[in-house]
């Protein structure tokens, strides 16, 4: 007889499910301003603990405190607030447009606006992002025309991607925004390659990789860390931990490591965790990592701790797997409200001006939408041509595709 203990499988589960009361008490949140800011040329070995903390700048009162504060002027912060508000208004309109059948699909950013909007402001033109589908803030903050975004979403005749891509899978080389793949993770290692190329060419431009908490489990994440670490590529690698991967809570991808940032420790990379709902903290950390990359000091891994307030996509209904009120309980608050309160506290903003700005921004978004709709929406008005379907598979169309196009009669 086998007297050895019986094994059993451990399957991590979130602490709460629909019907339960949300509980984030396990999330340890350090005081704003309490995490030190090391010099950018620090030896990664010396800052391993940053992978288990959270860098925060905005305190409960809306003040910017501590060593990471002060990377932006009030004017710049106000611009940042507008970017986030614009993204939120944009999302709201596009969600409605999807419900109206003007497009097939949409993915929103609610709760995560600070991450991409703030990060973008730490970059320079010429740098290249390799984003996922939840970083449209990079485009908004980078000055990409909203009309072009909408044209893409509507797959209309003015769609810069000619109707070929799923909505929100934007691409703009000019704006440092690499073509989004529908396949998770793949772009993370490509970012490292782009950065290596920049280093090979003795250029000064850097690359930025983006990945979701759930997607860190993909192989590309590992390859990215291996190559970035080995060749000290000038790249910033961002993990956006919004707590969920569709219906799967972050504990499934994270396993026993405590944090996602900790993954970087095994590669000797500086690994920082930042309050992803704190625009100022994201900007400060981004600036630190970007400077490190730019000075050829190598890659940085950043975990942005945030929360996906909305559904995963328009095909998803989160009430099936998490309490409806969970997002209210999220302890890091709302990035827009927090930044608004900061500016009010600084005396350069007010509730009144905020409401005005909201209205103005909504007008701009609506105007852009009107403009875009002139070019058509998914099922009505102008469409990309069927000929376009056959173009661009190769630089030059090979004979077999020409035959097929002919057969299609276009």
């Amino acid at each position, binding site marked *: 007889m086998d007297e050895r203990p019986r094994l059993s499988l451990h*399957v991590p589960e979130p602490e709460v499910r629909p019907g339960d009361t949300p509980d984030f008490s396990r999330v340890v949140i350090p005081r704003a301003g309490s995490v030190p800011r090391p010099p950018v040329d620090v030896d990664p070995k010396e800052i391993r603990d940053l992978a288990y903390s959270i860098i925060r700048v905005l305190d409960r009162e809306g003040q910017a405190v501590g060593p990471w504060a002060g990377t932006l002027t009030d004017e710049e912060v106000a611009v940042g607030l507008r970017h986030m508000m614009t993204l939120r208004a944009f999302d709201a309109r596009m969600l409605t447009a999807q419900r109206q059948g003007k497009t097939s699909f949409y993915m929103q950013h609610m709760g995560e606006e600070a991450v991409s909007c703030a990060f973008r402001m730490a970059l320079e033109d010429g740098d290249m992002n390799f984003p996922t589908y939840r970083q449209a803030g990079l485009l908004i903050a980078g000055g990409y025309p909203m009309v072009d975004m909408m044209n893409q979403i509507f797959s209309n005749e003015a769609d810069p991607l000619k109707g*070929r891509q799923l909505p929100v899978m934007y691409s703009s080389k000019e704006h440092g925004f690499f073509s989004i793949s*529908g396949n998770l993770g793949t772009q993370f290692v490509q970012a490292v390659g782009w950065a290596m190329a920049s280093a090979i060419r003795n250029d000064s431009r850097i690359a930025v990789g983006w990945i979701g908490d759930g997607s860190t*489990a993909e192989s590309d994440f590992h390859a990215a860390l291996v190559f970035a670490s080995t060749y000290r590529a000038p790249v910033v690698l961002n993990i956006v931990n919004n707590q969920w991967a569709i219906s799967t809570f972050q504990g*499934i*991808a994270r*396993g026993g490591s405590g944090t996602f940032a900790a993954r970087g420790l095994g590669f000797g990379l500086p690994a920082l965790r930042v309050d992803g709902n704190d625009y100022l903290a994201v900007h400060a950390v981004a600036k630190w990592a970007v400077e490190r990359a730019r000075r050829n000091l190598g890659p940085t891994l950043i975990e942005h701790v945030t929360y996906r307030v909305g559904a995963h996509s328009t095909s998803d209904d989160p009430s099936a*797997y998490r309490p409806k009120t969970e997002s209210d309980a999220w302890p890091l608050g709302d990035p827009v409200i927090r930044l608004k309160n900061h500016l009010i506290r600084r005396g350069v903003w007010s509730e009144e001006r905020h409401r005005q700005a909201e209205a103005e921004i909504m007008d701009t978004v609506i105007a852009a939408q009107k403009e875009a709709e002139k070019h058509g929406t998914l099922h009505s008005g102008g469409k990309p041509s069927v000929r376009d379907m*056959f173009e661009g598979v190769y630089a030059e169309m090979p004979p077999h595709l020409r035959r097929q196009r002919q057969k299609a009669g276009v």
Partner: protein
Amino acid sequence: MARMTMIEAIRSAMDVAMGRDERVVVFGEDVGYFGGVFRCTAGLQQKYGRSRCFDTPISELGIVGVAIGMAAYGLKPCVEIQFADYVYPAYDQIVSEAARLRYRSAGQFTCPIVIRMPTGGGIFGGQTHSQSPEALFTHVSGLKVVVPSNPRDAKGLLISAIEDPDPVIFLEPKRLYNGPFDGHHDRPVTPWSKHEAGEVAEGHYTVPLGKAEVRRQGSAVTVLAYGTMVYVAQAAAEERGIDAEIIDLRTLLPLDLDAIATSVQKTGRCVVLHEATLTSGFGAELAALVQEHCFWHLEAPVQRVTGWDTPYPHAQEWDYFPGPRRVGEALVAAMEA
């Protein structure tokens, strides 16, 4: 007998298999608590517990890799890849490992796993939610490849696949999940509840792997199809009034060559359909086999009607999809050749 959608039938197959055999385990991205983005595994975790049905990290390689290890141990994993478009990260584990384990270990270790995945277009999913990668598996010795076209078959084939001693790629045409679809995307969809193949036995039964089914008898031309294209073929034949014999292949590997040859030797003409891109698609193998085995009976070249050799576009979905118009034209051309 019950009325089931294809989703319900697939779920029922796993339910029955898990109930009969403790070694059957089910896992994949979002398949545990939530029950899968298409709900194919809904309720299984609640019924069989978290160690027999669970969520996984987003790593298709990991899903298939651990499934192979489990199979080597003696379990029978039935795993879900969320969309067939996302199977490539697991491709090495499937091709180099699952498919070859029995052979290279001379039968010491075997790999009875099922890899389920929604396949095909028709839901405006763009290039990453629409692919039909079956030909990338039919080239791999050691795999079986199954594509059901209705709830009744789906359940019986899936139970066969789970009970099979070898690895099976099980491709579920997502456009058929809720009803047959003939390619007329502008017409209302018939639900499975209105279709006789939506009548599905609740208990255990199997549909054998490797056996095709004639869906429509005919004598003028043989149509080889599987999955969604079976219904497109039917619509096209009706619309053009052509006496087509439509064969639903059901299993692509191993293939029911006898059924194919018998029919083509009778009709003398053959049209091959699939949604995947043309070049090196499974239609190439079918056309090659038909001309090899029925050469002296053929009165016209075997034609292929397929997706074009481009990624699956979003806006031009219905220009890409080989719908009843294109199929009908090919039927006419085959008759007139």
